[in-house]
C-alpha cells in the first residue's frame, strides 16, 4: 500500500495520502482538538460529463442532469435509504454535484466507524429500479423549479450561457424537467460504470478520527477494481463569447448582474491552482481597496453585495464580478475600462504585496476547518496537487505572475454581462 506524508512547514501540519489496494486514493488528515470528522467520497463526474466512452467503446450521450440524478439515487439501496442508516449513527449526511465532480459526504462527532462504512457502501453498491427513478423525477423536478425562481442562480447560468457556445458548463447542473424525464435505470448504470471506478475516485477525511479505522473499513468493503479508461467528449469551444449581453425578467428588487471574463484554460491542475492567482488579480482590479471600487460605490452604482470569484475546472476558467445595480451596463463599461487601464499601466508592486498578504490570511483559514480541509484534499487529489499548494503558491507568487494572469484571462473582447431585473 503506497503511503506518503504531505507536510506544510509554514503551518507545521500534515496529512497522509494512501493508495488503497482497491485502487482508491485516501486523503487523511486527523486534526487535533476538533470534535467532528468530515468525510467526502468523490469522483470526477460532474454535470459537464454529458458524453463519454469506456475503453474503446462508442460514445454515449446522456440526458442533461444525469450526474446529479445519479447522486440522488445512490442514496437508495436494496435494503432501503442510506439516510435511514446514517440516522442510526447520528451523522449528518449529504451530497453535491458540481460541474466537474460529485461528492458524497457526512459529518459526525460519534460512531465514525459505522458512518464511514455506510458511506463506502452507499457509493459502491448502486441500486436503481424504474420505480425509484420515477419517484425521484418528482423530487428533482421541484428542486429545478426552486432554482427557476432563484435570481442568483439564474443570473449565473445566463452568464455562462452567454460566455460559452458549446461547453456543457452552460447547462444547469440539475438539467431540466424535460431532460430528467429521459433518465432510465439503464442509463444510470452506464454512467455509474464509467465514472465510479475506484481508481478514479478519492476518499477524503479530516478532523477527529483514526487513520486505521478508515483503512480497516476500506479493507472490509472495497473490492479491487480493474482500472478503466473513460474518455469524455472533446469540447469544441471557440475562444469568443456567444453573446455580449443577456437579460431575464424575474421578481427582484434592484437588478442583479454578473460580469464574466472568459479566461484561457490550461490543464485541470493549472486551472484549479490559477484560481488563487485569479482571486488576487480580481482584488487588484475591482477589490474594496481600489479606486475603481470606491468610485462605483460612491456613485451608487454598486453596493456592499459586490464581489468577485474565479471559477475553474477542466477546460474552463472564468473571472466573475457580481452584485446589484440600478445601472448594470454602466458598471460593465467602467469595469472594462478599469481592466484595460490596469493592463496598460501594470499592477503596482505595493498593491500586489497588499493583495498577496490578504490572500495568505484568508487561505490559512482553510486549514483549521474540518469541512474546508476535507474539501481541499478532494480537489488536490482529483486535480493532482498538494492540499497545501495554494498557500505555498501565494507565498511564492510574483508580480509577474499576476501580470501574466491579467493579460491572459481578462480579454475585453471576451466578456459578457448578465442581468436579472423586474
Amino acid at each position, binding site marked *: 500500500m503506497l503511503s506518503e506524508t504531505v507536510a506544510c512547514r509554514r503551518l507545521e501540519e500534515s496529512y497522509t495520502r494512501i493508495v488503497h489496494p482497491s485502487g482508491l486514493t485516501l486523503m487523511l488528515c486527523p486534526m487535533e482538538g476538533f470534535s467532528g470528522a468530515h468525510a467526502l467520497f468523490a469522483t470526477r463526474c460532474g454535470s459537464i460529463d454529458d458524453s463519454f466512452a469506456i475503453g474503446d467503446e462508442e460514445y454515449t450521450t446522456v440526458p442533461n442532469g444525469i450526474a446529479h440524478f445519479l447522486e440522488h439515487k445512490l442514496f437508495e439501496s436494496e435494503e432501503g435509504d442510506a439516510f435511514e442508516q446514517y440516522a442510526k449513527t447520528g*451523522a449528518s449526511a449529504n451530497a453535491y454535484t458540481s460541474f466537474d465532480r460529485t461528492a458524497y459526504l457526512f459529518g459526525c462527532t460519534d460512531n465514525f466507524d459505522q458512518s464511514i462504512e455506510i458511506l463506502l457502501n452507499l457509493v459502491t453498491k448502486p441500486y436503481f429500479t424504474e420505480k425509484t427513478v420515477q419517484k425521484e423525477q418528482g423530487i428533482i423536478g*421541484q428542486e429545478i*423549479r426552486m432554482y427557476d425562481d432563484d435570481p442568483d442562480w439564474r443570473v449565473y447560468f445566463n452568464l455562462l450561457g452567454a460566455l460559452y457556445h458549446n461547453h456543457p458548463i452552460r447547462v444547469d447542473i440539475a438539467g431540466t424537467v424535460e431532460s430528467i424525464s429521459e433518465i432510465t435505470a439503464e442509463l444510470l448504470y452506464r454512467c455509474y460504470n464509467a465514472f465510479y471506478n475506484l481508481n478514479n475516485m478519492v476518499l477524503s477525511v479530516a478532523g477527529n478520527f483514526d487513520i486505521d479505522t478508515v483503512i480497516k473499513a476500506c479493507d472490509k468493503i472495497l473490492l479491487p477494481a480493474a482500472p478503466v479508461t473513460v474518455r469524455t467528449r472533446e469540447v469544441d469551444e471557440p475562444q469568443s463569447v456567444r453573446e455580449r449581453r443577456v437579460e431575464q425578467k424575474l421578481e*427582484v428588487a434592484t437588478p442583479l448582474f454578473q460580469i464574466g471574463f472568459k479566461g484561457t484554460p490550461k490543464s485541470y491542475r493549472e486551472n484549479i491552482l490559477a484560481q488563487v492567482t485569479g482571486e488576487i488579480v480580481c482584488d487588484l482590479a475591482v477589490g474594496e481597496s481600489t479606486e475603481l471600487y470606491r468610485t462605483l460605490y460612491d456613485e451608487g452604482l454598486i453596493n456592499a453585495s459586490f464581489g468577485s470569484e474565479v471559477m475553474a475546472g477542466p477546460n474552463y476558467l472564468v473571472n466573475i464580478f457580481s452584485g446589484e445595480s440600478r445601472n448594470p451596463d454602466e458598471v460593465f463599461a467602467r469595469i472594462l475600462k478599469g481592466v484595460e487601464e490596469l493592463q496598460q499601466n501594470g499592477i503596482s508592486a505595493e498593491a500586489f504585496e497588499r493583495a498577496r498578504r490578504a490572500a495568505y490570511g484568508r487561505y490559512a483559514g482553510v486549514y483549521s*476547518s474540518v469541512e474546508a480541509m476535507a474539501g481541499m484534499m478532494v480537489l488536490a487529489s482529483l486535480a493532482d496537487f498538494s492540499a497545501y499548494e495554494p498557500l505555498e503558491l501565494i507565498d511564492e507568487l510574483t508580480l509577474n505572475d499576476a501580470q501574466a494572469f491579467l493579460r491572459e484571462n481578462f480579454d475585453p473582447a471576451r466578456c459578457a454581462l448578465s442581468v436579472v431585473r423586474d
Partner: protein
Amino acid sequence: MTTNLIRTALSRGVNLSVLSDPKFKHNRISINLIVPLDAQTVSCNAILPFLLRKGSQSCKDFTQLNRRLDAMYGASLAADVSKSGGNQIITLGIKMLDDRFTLGGEALVQQAATLLRELLMEPLIEDGVFDRKEFFLERQNLIDTIESLINDKRSYALSQCRMLMGRNDSAALQKYGTVEQAQKLTPKDAAEAYRRLLDTAAVEIMFVGSGDPSAASEVMKKAFAGMTRAPQPFTDAKICPAGEETLKKVEYLDVAQSKMVLGFRSDKRGNMAEQSAMRLMTALYGGTPSSKLFLNVREKLSLCYYCAARYDRSSAVMFVDCGVEKENIESAKKEILVQLDEIRNGNFDDETLENTRLQIKNSLRAVSDYPGTLEEWYISRILSDEVATPEEEMRAIDAVTREQVIEAAKKIRLDAIYLLTSKEESVDA
C-alpha cells in the same frame, strides 16, 4: 472538545466573553450593541453599522481603511444588524489571522481591537450630523437591502409568515425595519440614534479564536472607561397563544414554484427541559432526513424538494415551510398536518426517536468546531439569560422522554398560513 465561555464585566453594561481554542488560526472580535426592537427606531439603528464601517476620525478614507485591513493579512470587517428575541443587535466585528501565523510577527489582535474602537467611538460625525453624502448613499443601500429580501423567496416567505403572526409584538419586526421609515431618515436622526445607541445599548463583546485576548480586553476596557451610560436590559419576545382563527395571507408574484409557510405557536417558552423536548419534537417532525415530513411529504408523496420544520426558542414559534407546485398546495398542507397528528398520537417508534436524539447531540457536539456557530450559540443564550453550554443542552436532550415529545407536539397550535404563489390561475384550481 469543550470550549468554555469566560465572561467578564469591563464596565457597567459592557461584558467581554472569551471563547478560546488553539485549534483555530483566526480570531474574531465583535462588538454587539443590543437595544430593544422598536418600530420607531429599528430603521434608524439599522443604518448605523453601515455608516460606522465607512471610516473614523483617524482613518477618514474608506479606501485607506480597506488597505489597512489588507495589510492586516486580509482582516475582514463585518458590520450588520440582527435580531434575537425582542432585541435588535448592531454588530461591528473583525476577523483576522492569529498573531502566531503572521509572517512578520505582527500584533494583529491589538491592531484589530484598536481599529474597532476607532470605528465605534470616533465616527465621521461633524457638527452633530453624519456626512451628508455618505448618509444618503447608505440610506439608499438600506432601502435596497430591505427591498431585496424578496429575491430569496424561501426566506422572504418565512419572514412574511412571522410578521403575519406578529400581533404587535416587536419581535416580529424585520431587523432592518421598513422602506417607509428608512426614507424619512435624516443625517441628524442618524447622529442622534448613534449617541442614543452608545448611551443606552447593552454591550456584549465577543472574542472567539486561538489567540490571546488580553490586548483586546485592554483596548475595550479603556474605550468604555469614563463613559456615563444607562444601558437597558435585554428584551424577551412576547409569548402569546395561537388565535381561535388561523391567520391567512396569500401573496401573488410571478414565480415558478409556490412557497407555503405554516406558523405554529406554543403558549409558553418553557424551562430548559421543555425547550429541549420542543427541539427534539421539531427534529422528529421535520428537522432531519429521517423526519416525518422528509419521509412522507418528500420521499413518499414526491411533492416537495424541501419540507422542513424549525423552532424559534426565543418566541416559542415553530415554522414548517415548503416549495410546492400550485396544484399540490392542498395535498402538501394536509399531509403536513397529518404528520403532526401522528406525533401527537405517539405514532413514532422508539428507534426513530433515539436516532433523532443522536443527530441533535452530534450537531451540538460540533458547535465548538466552528467559531461562527460558537459565537452565535452564546450570544443568543446571553440575551435570553440562559447561558447553557452545548454539553448541558446535550444532557437535557438525553433526559427528554417520549411522553414529553408528545406533550410538546400537543402544545403547539397552528396560528398562520402564508402562501406565495403565481399570479395566473392554476389549471386544476
